[in-house]
């Protein structure tokens, strides 16, 4: 790996502590990823991106900023990246999936806060993530209570911009979100000093739709009986898609898919025959949270789909490209970003249940695992309906609650192992 210490220093990072993370990551990545057999060659690009996760891309962002560019960081897939991109900024995801940052967040947040929020605040306050140093604007939203209040604390150190997402999906709520996106556009224009033109916005919509289409093309391979790529590889690609350059990652995913086309023709599978097909649903799995995929796929399962923000919700639906004025395009963004994402922060949210049932069929899942990040109240509560409705539909379901630590690895092994055994008898 190249030496990025000078860059990290210049970003005001706590380099000593950060070195601990740099030391731990290659081992974890090797165990989970590089140990897989028969991986597609096209994964090389993604391996490299992860190996230098705090190097290559941050260096690009530094370069962009040197030339006067701005970086906008987001925490939720309801927030449209098309807007900052159209304003000439780089958009990057900021969700944090490692226990490494959790204690830092715990210094300021109640213990009963979900690890995703704790890790996000920890990454900023401990100065151990370059992305959290590079963002010129941190875009929070009023989704769950945990985040909403955490933003107030984060705002003491970071330049925050909060978007008010509705809790219901009535016509007036759509209008409200549309209004919020207009406000976001203005804020991004102020930040970058660039006026968003219809041409720029249209180009941004196309750019991100192409990324979605590539990710969906990749997902299609998971519907096959012989699946040519592991679930954890697809998860990794999805996680990287949150912060890599959109055009480049689109090209890389498509290249990988060309290779998978060949594999599909020859009925190549990376799984043993009879592997149980698992659909995951629930709270997001931010990088480097690979724990569940790893457990499932080492216990004789194959993850075929994620009904999650780090999954199908991120890419399944595209934005309507037919708009010609800014207003029209923002209307289309509103439809996509509010109408097509079914997060538990909305009430009611039965569309999500319908999605899970539909996806279970499309991806021929043998069973569903409903994952809840500890202390995520909204997904936990919604689990009641997920379980009941899947039971009614005759689809086996297992509910699991976990966090970013490895303390529960043995218990999870028993639960997931028993679930897979159950699907097999």
């Amino acid at each position, binding site marked *: 790996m190249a030496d990025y210490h000078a860059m990290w220093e210049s970003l005001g990072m706590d380099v000593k502590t950060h070195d601990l993370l740099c030391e731990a990551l290659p081992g974890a990545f090797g165990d989970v990823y590089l140990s897989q057999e028969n991986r597609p060659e096209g994964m090389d690009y993604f391996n490299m991106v992860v190996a230098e996760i705090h190097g290559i891309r941050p260096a690009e962002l530094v370069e962009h900023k040197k030339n006067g560019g701005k970086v906008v960081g987001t925490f939720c897939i309801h927030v449209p990246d098309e807007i900052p991109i159209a304003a000439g900024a780089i958009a990057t995801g900021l969700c944090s999936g490692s226990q490494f940052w959790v204690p830092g967040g715990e210094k300021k947040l109640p213990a009963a806060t979900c690890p995703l929020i704790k890790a996000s605040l920890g990454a900023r306050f401990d100065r151990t993530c370059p992305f959290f140093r590079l963002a010129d604007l941190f875009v929070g939203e009023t989704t769950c209570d945990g985040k909403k209040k955490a933003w107030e604390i984060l705002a003491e150190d970071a330049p925050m911009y909060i978007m008010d997402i509705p809790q219901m999906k009535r016509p007036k709520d759509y209008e409200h979100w549309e209004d919020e996106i207009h406000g976001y556009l203005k804020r991004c224009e102020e930040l970058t000093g660039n006026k968003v033109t219809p041409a720029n916005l249209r180009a941004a919509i196309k750019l991100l739709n192409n990324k979605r289409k590539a990710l969906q093309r990749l997902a299609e391979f998971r519907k096959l009986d012989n699946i040519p790529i592991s679930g954890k590889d697809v998860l990794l690609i999805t996680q990287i898609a949150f912060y890599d350059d959109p055009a480049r990652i689109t090209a890389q995913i498509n290249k990988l898919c060309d290779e998978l086309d060949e594999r599909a023709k020859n009925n190549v599978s990376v799984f043993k025959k009879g592997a149980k097909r698992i659909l995951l649903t629930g709270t997001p799995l931010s990088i480097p949270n690979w724990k569940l995929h790893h457990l499932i796929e080492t216990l004789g399962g194959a993850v075929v789909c994620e009904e999650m923000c780090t999954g199908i919700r991120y890419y399944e639906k595209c934005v309507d490209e037919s708009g010609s004025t800014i207003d029209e395009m923002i209307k289309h963004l509103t439809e996509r970003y509010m109408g097509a994402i079914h997060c538990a922060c909305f009430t009611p949210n039965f569309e999500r249940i319908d999605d899970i049932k539909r996806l279970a069929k499309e991806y021929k899942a043998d069973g569903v695992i409903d994952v809840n990040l500890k202390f995520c109240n909204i997904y936990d509560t919604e689990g009641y309906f997920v379980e009941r409705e899947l*039971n009614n539909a005759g689809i086996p379901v297992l*509910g699991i609650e976990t966090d970013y630590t490895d303390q*529960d690895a043995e*218990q999870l092994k*028993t639960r997931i*192992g*028993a679930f897979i*055994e*159950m699907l097999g008898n």
Partner: protein
Amino acid sequence: MLFAGIDIGSTAAKAVLMSEDKREIVARNLMPSGWNSRETAERLLSWLMSLGYSRDDIRIIATGYGRVSVPYADSTLTEITCHGKGAAFLGGDDLTVIDIGGQDTKVIIIKNSRVIDFVMNDKCSAGTGKFLEVMANRMGLTLPEFFALAEHGKDIKISSMCTVFAESEIVSLMGLGTPREDIACGAVGSVVSKVATLVSKKASSGKYYLTGGFCESPLLIRKLSETLGSEVFTTPDARFAGAIGAALLGK
């Protein structure tokens, strides 16, 4: 070919040997899991060998949370699958199996002798054997002494959900001069109500069937039946359910 099941739980290790047609339990053995599951597993193997068969005559399946410490096993399965199978062997094809283990408690739904659903308690040890062990220890009793005492107690309410807090609650009850039998009885009641909550999370099937180390505790069975509003069945062999299931699943 005979079939053996080895179930290394957190507190007790169980082994059974089953006949070729898998209809009969030929021999059974029970010992504390101890500190070292590997050693315990070796002792169970010597016991098996002492029965007069050679290793090649027996197919060995390991289960329980110490299943990875049984290097000589031909294969391993989780305790949920095995408990379900073993309970169905003992109690019938449609059951709601309640297994109160040393460290975790599980409810397994069996239909047509197949596991169709299950739920386990979370990390917390309330509602497991551990809870009663800690309380007995605190009162300076062995578990059998504790149960004997509890039989004569009145039901008092232990309000703490967590084992650690319940322990200090018991200390203060003892300080107040509350009769020990009442405290023991209350502790059993506390476990029963936790277990009943877990049971209520799943749609039950057939009759209730208790497996695990408490299948010979009349008080616990009685209280559990009362709380669930329906008789809980069991048999002394039910503590071997995991090992029986493992043996039955040997191929």
